[in-house]
């Protein structure tokens, strides 16, 4: 609930026609707020996030039933989608162009945003742009390989890898996603929105030297509420395949660390991200 109003506002401004939201048993007034929105349909479930394969089962059903033939942007509530020209060309312009160039999918990397001070300090207003409170990010410490089986790109790095997984980088969170898909009922997300089947849909990156059109998901996980959230997540043990392995991670998070460093970069917009090589217009000029 601390994110939804701005989440909806941001993506409404990008030209989303309709929001399909899965409310996983919230008790903070989310359901009521969603019910008041004219362009939101809500599904509520009391079942565990883990039991639904981290939400993938819910997505699969909704996308198959309502997404067929539409461009669908699949996001978590703590992600804000940005792409080249997003401040002057809406998603319809983008997807029309993707249609013209014959691309059924577009990739995006999650960019973890964090505050200047310790995590958990400060306050945030759900109606306001959360990036104002957490404007910093890591500009150039991302590593990746191409996974042979699904042919998707596996990107890791960023502040979480640097601060919490510096001894065991393999376990650092996956940052690559394929959130924008011209959906077909034959498609399926495999793990979160990191990869899909059939696997050619994962070819969202340039393999022959060129740059493919790519967006960024501004990840607002580290809003001030992160501390209470991570305590709750740890007790629910719903977020990882092998939850015990991540105890240290939650302990570290709950202690309110500072992610900011002298080398952190302050967010100024998509042009800056493009200059840094984090997103690309991919020939969409």
């Amino acid at each position, binding site marked *: 609930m601390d994110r939804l109003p701005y989440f909806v506002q941001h993506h409404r401004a990008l030209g989303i026609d309709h929001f399909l939201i899965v409310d996983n048993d919230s008790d903070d007034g989310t359901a009521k707020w969603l019910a008041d929105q004219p362009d939101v349909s809500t599904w509520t479930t009391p079942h565990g996030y883990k039991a639904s394969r981290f939400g993938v089962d819910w997505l699969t059903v909704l996308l198959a039933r309502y997404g067929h033939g539409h461009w669908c942007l699949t996001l978590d509530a703590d992600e804000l989608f940005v792409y080249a020209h997003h401040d002057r060309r809406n998603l319809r312009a983008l997807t029309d162009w993707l249609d013209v160039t*014959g691309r059924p999918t577009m990739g995006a990397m999650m960019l973890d945003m964090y505050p200047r001070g310790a995590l958990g300090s400060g306050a945030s207003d759900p109606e306001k742009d959360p990036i104002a409170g957490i404007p910093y990010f890591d500009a150039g410490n991302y590593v990746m390989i191409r996974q042979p089986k699904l042919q998707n790109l596996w990107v890791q790095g960023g502040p979480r890898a640097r601060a919490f997984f510096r001894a065991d980088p393999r376990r650092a969170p996956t940052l690559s996603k394929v959130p924008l898909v011209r959906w077909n009922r034959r498609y399926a997300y495999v793990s979160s929105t990191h990869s899909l089947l059939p696997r050619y849909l994962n070819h969202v990156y340039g393999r022959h030297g060129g740059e493919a059109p790519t967006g960024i998901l501004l990840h607002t996980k580290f809003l001030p509420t992160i501390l209470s959230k991570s305590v709750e997540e740890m007790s629910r043990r719903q977020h990882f395949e092998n939850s015990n392995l991540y105890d240290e991670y939650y302990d570290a998070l709950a202690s309110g660390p500072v992610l900011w460093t002298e080398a952190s970069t302050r967010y100024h917009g998509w042009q800056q991200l493009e200059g840094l090589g984090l997103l690309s217009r991919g020939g969409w000029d």
Partner: protein
Amino acid sequence: MTLGFVLLVHTAFDRAEQVARYFAANDCPVIIHVDGKVKPRTFKDFRDRFQGEPLVRFSRRTRVEWGTWSLVRATQFAAERLLDNFPDVRHVFLASGSCLPLRPVAQLKDYLATHPETDFIESVTTHQVTWTVDGLETERFTLRFPFSWRKNRRAFDTYVRLQRRFGLRRRIPDGISPHLGSQWWCLTRRTLESILNAPDRPAVDSYFSKVWIPDESYFQSLSRRYSADIESHSLTLSKFDVQGKPHVFYDDHQPLLERSDCFVARKIWPHAERLYSTFLDDERPIKRHADPNPGKIDRVFSKANERRGRGRPGLYSQARFPAPGFENGLSCARYNVFSGFEQVFHQFEPWLARRLGGRVHGHLYHPDQVEFAGGETVMNGCLSDSPALRDYRPEQFLTNLLWSTRGERQSFFYGPGDTPQIGSFLARDPNATLAIISGAWVVPLHTSNMDFDEIKAEAARLQRAEIMFLRTLRATGVAARVHLWTLAEFVEQPIEKLQNILDEITGPGPRRLTDLPQMRDISGLPDFLLQLRNGGIKPQVVGDFGSMPTRINRAAQERSQNVR
């Protein structure tokens, strides 16, 4: 009523209507061809919108497939009708439903009035064509293409291969000189009538109906046959991306489109409200009267095409992850790697930093720590000093460092004691300058207080690692600039060698090296090497210290001269 338009429409009917009405309001007749694939109901609705508009009429319809004869056929239908119905028309302008006039039509009319006999059609001989995406240039005219390139690519390619293998060729009809060019043109009545009323038109049409992409060659070739005066460029601004798909223009392109001074542009995104409202408003103040100059905006689009096609060298990202061999540059900038120097000289690192500028790191690939310059724990871009993170993807650690420090020279030390995984990358990267003194690791070792067995073990380990690295440098495919000396060779003339390296890195400077760092005392080396050899470790990489004493003396003399 001297200028008439042929409008090919298959979608975005509202915009086509807007543009057609604009032309008609400016006293220009318009013949619209609506794609035969459009449902009769939709067509009828569209046609009915123009009731009471005598200048807008519709031509016979045909189903249009991209890249096929049907597109020419549709153009012929509409052009015939236009010439027939409006005898005053002197120029015919071919446009599509996604075209938008950028300047008032009155200006276009004036321009054409000053060129009454000129045909504006891009028309280039096949030898000069550089833009085709499929690589078919001359063969467009000599092979047959019965299969759809878009829908049946495999059959298309196979059939092309078969014809090449068996040398099957079509005869080009007499009097046809194959030319290619943009599909969008503006022809005079005389030229167009000559083409459409040619006595051999059935034969010519039947030939072109099997040419590949005839809409880019039919009028382009035939106007060469009949025209008195061709200006070989299109009056329509259209840009193509690396895949041969047209660039689309949006509201934010408005200043760019104005600057181009072109009369018409395509394609316009149908929802670009501001472009349509601006450019279809003839009341707007007109400041520009220059001749069309699409070149002004070429630069912008060629940069986009470059990004799309070749990308930024040295960038690895969610947008760009080239397969091996497609990197177009393994890293983004030149950098320098020194090996052994810090063991031969005292305080070499600070000295080098003063000489080279930029950032001089320590051993970036030291197994226990990442020695960033100045002892930093994070580098630009928040690159961490964790050895585990570095060793997880050692090559991307380096490419990330170089990417985030673009514009600043990077140098670091690398030796046989460091993690070896990065070695082959350094050797393959043309951006790397490697300066290596092999066997320099014996210098600290020979004054070490360690137990001799430990020294031997260490010497064996370092020598093995160095031999492996040197082997990498001799492999095929080494692209780095490598300067390699054995320790013995180096100490013979250290200043000259150092000078050469620094000159290569920073460009030749007027200054000779004067403030050389102090060399460590290596007078005990020959004995130490003998000891090693007798202990069972054969020194293989330090070079020949057979006549050591004199050489050392010479080096020392040389040094003392220069220090003064």
